[in-house]
């Protein structure tokens, strides 16, 4: 942080000082913990895929690649719009920034709606942990669907948290609490959103593509 920044912050905020680089460092550390959280799941996936390759293959055929692809496109687009929203705010275009962020949130919602229908179909077919249909299948398929629900569920939870964060940020931009010269909170939410996207990019091939 430069000297002028420091002096400015000391005057306007008193006890709590402003350090944008520090904030981003904290956010990166947090993202690191998120990666490790999912890392545990990816490890378990690897262990059981290695143990039951054939049954994972058969179970994977049950998943709808079309809806998975659609959701991948949706998330990738939303990652782009949140990045553009930051760029717009940096260029002092508050209106465009708000619109782009709004699009991001709408895309996130549509991801969740797709997920709802996708899960719904699985429930209809009786494919959920503890169901009789599933318990009648071989062990590898039981584990595949267990992991599928846990990992996409945990990811979905992160999408929901992302929607909440982005909405708060949206309100703060509208109220001018986040501006072109103080946008680190928007940047940090963007980083979080990219992580949610990144994790999906690994989940998508592991569950939907490599059959």
């Amino acid at each position, binding site marked *: 942080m430069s000297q002028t920044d*420091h002096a400015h912050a000391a005057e306007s905020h008193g006890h709590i000082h402003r350090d944008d680089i520090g904030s981003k460092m904290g956010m990166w550390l947090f993202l690191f913990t998120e990666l490790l959280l999912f890392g545990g799941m990816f490890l378990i996936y690897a262990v059981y895929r290695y143990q039951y390759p054939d049954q994972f293959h058969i179970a994977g055929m049950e998943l709808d690649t079309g809806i998975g692809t659609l959701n991948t496109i949706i998330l990738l687009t939303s990652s782009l719009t949140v990045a553009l929203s930051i760029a717009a705010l940096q260029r002092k275009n508050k209106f465009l920034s708000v619109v782009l962020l709004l699009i991001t949130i709408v895309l996130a919602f549509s991801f969740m709606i797709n997920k709802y229908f996708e899960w719904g179909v699985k429930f209809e077919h009786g494919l959920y942990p503890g169901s009789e249909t599933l318990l009648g299948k071989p062990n590898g398929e*039981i584990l595949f669907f267990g992991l599928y629900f846990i990992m996409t569920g945990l990811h979905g939870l992160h999408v929901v948290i992302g929607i909440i964060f982005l909405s708060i940020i949206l309100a703060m931009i509208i109220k001018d609490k986040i501006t072109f010269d103080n946008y680190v909170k928007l940047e940090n939410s963007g980083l979080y959103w990219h992580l949610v996207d990144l994790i999906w990019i690994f989940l998508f091939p592991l569950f939907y593509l490599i059959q």
Partner: protein
Amino acid sequence: MANGAAAVAEKTFYEEGTSSRKGILGWLLSTDHKRIGLLYLGAVGSFFIVGVILGILMRLELIAPGKTIMEPQTYNAVFTLHGVIMIFLFIIPGIPAVFGNFFLPLQLGAKDVAFPRLNLLSWYIYIIGAILVLISLVLPGGPLDTGWTFYIPYSVRTGANVSLAIFAAFVLGFSSILTGLNFITTVHRMRAPGMGFFKMPLFVWATYATAWIQVIATPIIGITILLVILERVFGVGIFDPALGGDPILYQHLFWIYSHPAVYIMILPAMGVVSEIIPTFARRTIFGYKAIAISSLAIAFVGYLVWAHHMFVSGLSDTSAMIFSLLTFIVALPSGVKIFNWVATMYKGSIDPKPPFIWVMVFIFLFSIGGLTGLVLGSLATDVHLHDTYFVVAHFHYVMFGGTGTIFFAALFYWYPKMFGKMYSIKWANIAAALFFVAFNALYFPKFIMGYMGMPRRYYDYLPEFADLQLISTIGSWLMGITMIIIFWNLIHALLKGPKSKENPWGGVTLEWHTSSPPPLENFHVIPTVTHEPYDFSQLKEMKNYESD
């Protein structure tokens, strides 16, 4: 920072808070790292007392074979609760959250931590976690009875309230992660002008290494705990052999966190030792860089040894040998520290005040704990000693004899700085001596019993263990008396003790350069660091130090 010109009123952080609120709300809503440190001290200290009482009850049950005061199921709940409280609510947050919060910014010459509001949030998350533990005790199903390791399959099959209790551990982990990332950012961004990484006090180095472990290891226990809950609620099958899962996988995931976590517990304590020894030996620390780097080395190697908890769970011989070797390697950086501390004292002008005496107790007890760790790390002996009292004794020598002892050493060392009052030196010394006797009476017999084959966590035992169990129980009473003396001494000092000198021990790290207790923003003028951290030639220039 050129705010030195602005005249600051001589108010301590007790008199001036971060918000205009007065009284209890001024504390509960304060973002001042010193107040948050004291909030943690209150919470952590209270849970410690609960843990001690549970421990004494356990020992009382074991005073004679057969039933003494409680049913077997109650005993299971008591030892589980003792473990959960002591580990998740006392030792893990103990030194980093209490002394780290209070002294990390002070030692760095900063006004506060990098994220003060996040810091307060961490305290609240800690309290929520603690409340969840308490709620799980009274809900139908009964208190957790799995032991603090929550091993599968028992933790999935027992009717006790496992889900809520381990969810509490998840919440507490979240608090730990936030504290960790706060401290890392603070160390990188908030050092005073002139303070390079190799001018930081060693407590800062140790806390920094700890913070990295907190950030890197804790998420793994988070996901593992979530999986156990999902397993209980939905029966997913990941840990259930009937559905193709593997219970051993749980042990791996659990220890990948929980072994590094023992370094979360011990590293800050080692940092405190590196502060106290130079101050009371009046000599700069021997091997500063070696001690600083060894903290990081312990943090790193500590990740690669988890499976030494699982030597008898069907690990292949090759991996068992590799993990055994790696376990021995962790002893190297620990040894580097011990030898450097002892070398610091050589030809020093030693002033055996209470903090120093507590550190001597630590070195003795921790050495026994560390060396018996090597016995357990060797494959052949571990097969014999696994899950016996030997492990319990080893664990208490390193954790209670190590971290617990240093928690008191740190309290006695920084008490005048935190509260501006002085406790009774005589009673602090008596407590240290009594602690030493009580500790060895309480835990040393467990080495012998473990060697003879007494399994841990058992409610009953064979008659040949009766004498040693009795000695151990008498030790627990002495320990209880020691704790009463310590708490009485400190609380009495707080209420009626004499005002302390500004710098009673002649410390030279930055926290001793400001007044005691410090003002709200720690320093009237942000200091510029020109000296090495333990350069005692500064004492002559320091106005607040009067030698006796």
